[in-house]
């Protein structure tokens, strides 16, 4: 029943407050007391106060009136427990101080006072009862009330100024029960006021006033704020470069690296030996800074060279003239010559399909028969072999015992004669190919009427002699020095031999049909290397180590000297049309000469890293090749146009590999097949390879 009790307390308070109210007019009440009539206070109050008061009194009356009703209700529920209620109303209780009763119950009967406990009893009761402090005495009802715990808590909360009920939360989260988004209709349906659309007159007035004030000088606009004058220390100096047309930015000092760290990684720190070795170095070469490991940033000593360094830097910037480098903005691709695609220049030798094996030493020289059916090779093992081109079968072998330096097949198909140079001898060998008629003719040609024919009766008896050679079935030309190369004239009658050590009689031209020899009637001015006949005219090319001399044999005069600019010429080849020659050199350079153009090389191709051993032109295809000690052979496309205004087209096509080096030599000779775009290469590894398209 806490509710009831609380209301009881309220009642008590009311009664107390009413007590205070009434104390002001205590004297008046005493008058009533004296009259002895105290049952109806209402009438008296109504008599004294105005309407509003009576209203409030009515309220009071209502309150009072509710009390009996409550009591009645309570009595309804629990008649036995609740004592009859005092109905005296809100009057000072001291009115009944001397009476035997304290008031009247609802039936009008006097409520008797209870027997007062003596002070001693009450004290004893206090001592005995621990809950006695929570007891109050209700004078109106003349009874003791014991406050429950809940009531005491209420009291405490009131004292602290909080809400009395413990379950009341003054800071409960606010719940917005209004559903804003669901509102279909605006709260106000008023149309937009006109003032929102027209410019404000008041503002216009104010602006006018401001303008007038600024004009009159009364108002001053704000000065623009000065921006802080910072700049990017490490940024690009492009802006300053734009400012001055000829401005050249100073070279930037080198940025510090890891070794300049105060505590670099150990690999940057030089050992004591290294530091000592610095001392031995020249002042210029000595490193400026020796990395040292310092335990903490605090412990870094002052840099002793700081002033010196910055001074030198300033000196550099001040004294060293700076020049703007002119850079040409050229696409490197555009500098490349426009060459046709290799695919369009087919056929050319690409793949090695056949090998000719059998030699036991490096193959020095090869020569292909005019029809392309046979190939002859000479080797350092002292043998000459003839091979069948399309099967790789070795047909014949001749043993000479000494290094074969050069072999050369007679260019006429009906004369299967091989010219071979072995040390000081040149042999003309009957290969035995061909039918009986051919053999007969060859044998006739290779027979000597006089066994020892003196050459040019007068001046050259000792240097050369034609001999019949029965061992190999041919002729032998005994020279006075080692013969390096043998070359046939296109008609198969003349051939030339070159003796590099022969001095003035180094190059000899022999005639097979007459068995005659004559020396080249020109002074060579250099060590001869090789010689070639012109493919169509009576022109003879003789190359010394430095340049190539071109002679007209009919008119017996020097036509031209081609200055190669090379260190040492190793080989030359003439284009089948005769106007272009290629020269290979020991420094790996290949020179193309256009005879009509100039005596200087038209083009120098630097492709081989090592000596070029031989160069070759193809007889019918626009191909030429070079072979080198780097074990490769290069194949080039070389078109010569009949139009004199058009330069030859030279395109590198293919690098042919496959040979292995031996004793520092690689590919020693290369020859084209006379009819197919095939290339034969002879290697120091004793193999001959055939590269086909």
């Amino acid at each position, binding site marked *: 029943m806490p509710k009831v009790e609380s209301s009881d307390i309220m009642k008590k308070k009311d009664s107390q407050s009413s007590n205070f109210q009434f104390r002001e007019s205590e004297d008046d009440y005493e008058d009533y007391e004296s009259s002895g009539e105290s049952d109806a206070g209402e009438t008296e109050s109504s008599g004294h106060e105005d309407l509003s008061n009576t209203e409030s009194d009515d309220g009071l009356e209502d309150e009072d009136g509710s009390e009996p009703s409550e009591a009645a209700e309570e009595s309804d529920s629990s008649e036995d427990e609740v004592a009859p209620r005092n109905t005296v109303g809100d009057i000072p209780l001291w009115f009944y101080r001397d009476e035997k009763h304290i008031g009247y119950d609802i039936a009008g009967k006097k409520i008797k006072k209870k027997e007062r406990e003596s002070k001693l009893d009450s004290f004893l009761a206090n001592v005995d009862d621990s809950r006695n402090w929570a007891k109050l005495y209700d004078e109106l009802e003349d009874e003791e009330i014991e406050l429950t715990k809940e009531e005491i808590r209420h009291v405490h909360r009131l004292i602290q100024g909080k809400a009395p009920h413990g379950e009341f939360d003054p800071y409960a989260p606010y719940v917005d029960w209004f559903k804003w988004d669901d509102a279909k209709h605006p709260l106000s349906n008023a149309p937009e006021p006109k003032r929102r659309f027209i410019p404000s007159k008041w503002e216009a007035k104010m602006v006018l006033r401001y303008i007038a004030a600024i004009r009159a000088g009364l108002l001053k606009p704000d000065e623009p704020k000065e921006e802080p004058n910072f700049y990017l220390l490490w940024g690009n100096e492009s802006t300053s470069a734009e400012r001055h047309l000829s401005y050249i930015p100073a070279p930037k000092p080198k940025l510090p690296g890891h070794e300049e760290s105060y505590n670099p990684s150990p690999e940057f720190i030089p050992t004591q030996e290294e530091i000592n070795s610095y001392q031995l170095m020249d002042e210029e070469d000595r490193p400026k800074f020796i990395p040292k490991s310092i335990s903490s940033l605090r412990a870094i000593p002052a840099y002793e060279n700081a002033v010196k360094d910055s001074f030198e830097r300033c000196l550099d910037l001040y004294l060293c003239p700076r020049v703007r480098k002119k850079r040409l903005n050229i696409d490197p691709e555009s500098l490349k010559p426009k060459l046709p695609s290799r695919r369009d220049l087919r056929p050319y030798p690409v793949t090695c*399909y*056949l090998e000719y094996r059998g030699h036991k030493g490096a193959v020095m020289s090869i020569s292909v028969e005019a029809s392309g059916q046979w190939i002859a090779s000479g080797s350092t093992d002292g043998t000459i072999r003839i091979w069948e081109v399309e099967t*790789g*079968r070795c047909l014949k072998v001749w043993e000479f015992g000494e290094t074969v330096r050069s072999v050369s097949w007679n260019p006429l198909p009906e004369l299967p004669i091989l010219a071979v140079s072995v040390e000081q001898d040149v042999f003309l060998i009957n290969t035995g190919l061909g039918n009986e008629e051919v053999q007969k003719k060859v044998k006739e040609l290779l027979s000597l009427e006089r066994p020892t024919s003196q050459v040019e009766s007068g001046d050259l008896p000792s240097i050369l002699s034609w001999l019949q050679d029965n061992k190999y079935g041919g002729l032998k030309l005994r020279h006075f020095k080692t013969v390096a190369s043998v070359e046939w004239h296109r008609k198969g009658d003349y051939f030339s031999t070159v003796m590099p050590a022969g001095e003035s009689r180094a190059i000899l031209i022999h005639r097979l049909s007459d068995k005659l020899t004559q020396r080249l009637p020109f002074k060579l001015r250099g060590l001869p290397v090789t010689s070639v006949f012109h493919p169509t005219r009576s022109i003879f090319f003789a190359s010394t180590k430095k340049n190539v001399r071109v002679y007209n044999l009919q008119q017996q005069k020097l036509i031209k000297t081609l200055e190669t600019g090379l260190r040492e010429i190793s080989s030359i080849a003439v284009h089948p049309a005769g106007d272009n020659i290629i020269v290979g050199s020991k420094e790996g350079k290949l020179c193309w000469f256009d005879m009509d153009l100039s005596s200087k090389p038209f083009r120098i191709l630097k492709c081989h890293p090592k000596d070029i051993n031989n160069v070759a032109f193809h007889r019918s295809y626009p191909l030429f090749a070079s072979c080198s000690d780097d074990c490769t052979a290069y194949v080039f496309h070389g078109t010569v146009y009949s139009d004199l205004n058009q330069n030859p087209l030279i395109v590198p096509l293919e690098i042919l590999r496959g040979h292995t080096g031996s004793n520092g030599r690689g590919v020693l000779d290369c020859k084209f097949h006379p*009819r197919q775009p095939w290339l034969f290469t002879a290697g120091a590894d004793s193999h001959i390879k055939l590269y086909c398209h």
Partner: protein
Amino acid sequence: MEMDGNIEEERRIQARFVTKLKPPFKAPTASIAIPSNLTRLGLSTIVNSLLQAGNPDWESQPFDFLIDGEFVRMSLDQFLLAKGISAEKILEIEYVKVVAPRKEHEPLLHDDWVSAVDGSCSQFILTGCYDGFGRVWKAAGLCTHVLEGHTGPITAVNIVNPEVADGIIMATASKDQTVRLWKVDAEQPTNYPAKVRAFKIMRGHNASVQSVAAQPSGNMICSGSWDCTINLWQIDDSSAEGNLVSTKKRKVKNEVDESLFEGEALSTLVGHKQCVSSVVWPQKDSLYSASSDHSIRQWDVETGKDLLNLFSGKALNCLHVGGESSSLIAAGGSDPILRVWDPRKPGTSAPIYQFSSHNSWISACKWHDKSWYHLLSASYDGKVMLWDLRTAWPLSVIELHEDKVLCADWWKGDSVVSGGVDSKLCISSEISVQ
């Protein structure tokens, strides 16, 4: 569990196995579901088990499989994907016997490189050798006749009339610039090898004769040479026979040389610019030639004009005409690609087939005389390959030689004879070309 999953993952194809083979090889034609990832081996196993079901004492043997006229050379699903064939409908797979030699005979040993071989006569093999002798070998591997007379290596041999039972005429070409004709009796001589001398020597070429071929009727032969010409020669059989008789007579008198009857060239076909490396004479009035000048020509024998000029781009070594209605041209040369042209097609400059499994020059190519599809090629890489026009891969590779193979031919329809630089003539037989 995993296994089950895998099996479910596999796609299955409804397939039916058909064949043109004779009854012992006929499998039931009902369609069965087969896994799609099968290769030749798997298919072969299936067919063998099918055959075994019908015939308990069946000996399993390998088969090759054709789908839509093309050989299956990968797994089945890859093949279907590559050819764009639907896997939904029933797949008809034709099976044929594998074309591969199943037996290798003892090689026939020569004294020098074997440069030419002819197997067109089923009774013997004719070989040409670098020692200048032609040899006739019986099937058993014994040399019955030696053709003596050439002074240079023999480059080509040809049996002029293989169908004749007796007195078979042979032609050989040599590097000694002659073509010689020989007559050999088929029966085995008592003391073998019997030495035979040529009954006719054809002189007229100015360089090595590289090839020889006979007219189908057996009346004429043609020869190609390094002098860029093709010569036609008449085989005057009657006079030859008379000559042979005289040979026999004079042999007794040991006057052999006089007996040799020299022949003159009937006509010369000029047009090639380089060595005529190969000639074939498949029809009476037209012959084909291949040359190192990269061209293949067809000649009209009567007029001496070239009817066809195919440009191949490579120097050619060998040529053969055969295949479909004997009109496809197969040629190989100075590169590892065997090319097949069809001259009947308009604008036939491009080959219709290119087989490029070899590694080096091709030295010989021959069509099978019964089959339209099969041809063989020999190469300097030491391999002889059997090809089928229906697949780009070789049917089988015969690697019996240790060095270059110089010549190869079919023999008896089921064997391949090949000779090479290792001086051996190898015979691989039991090749089931149907």
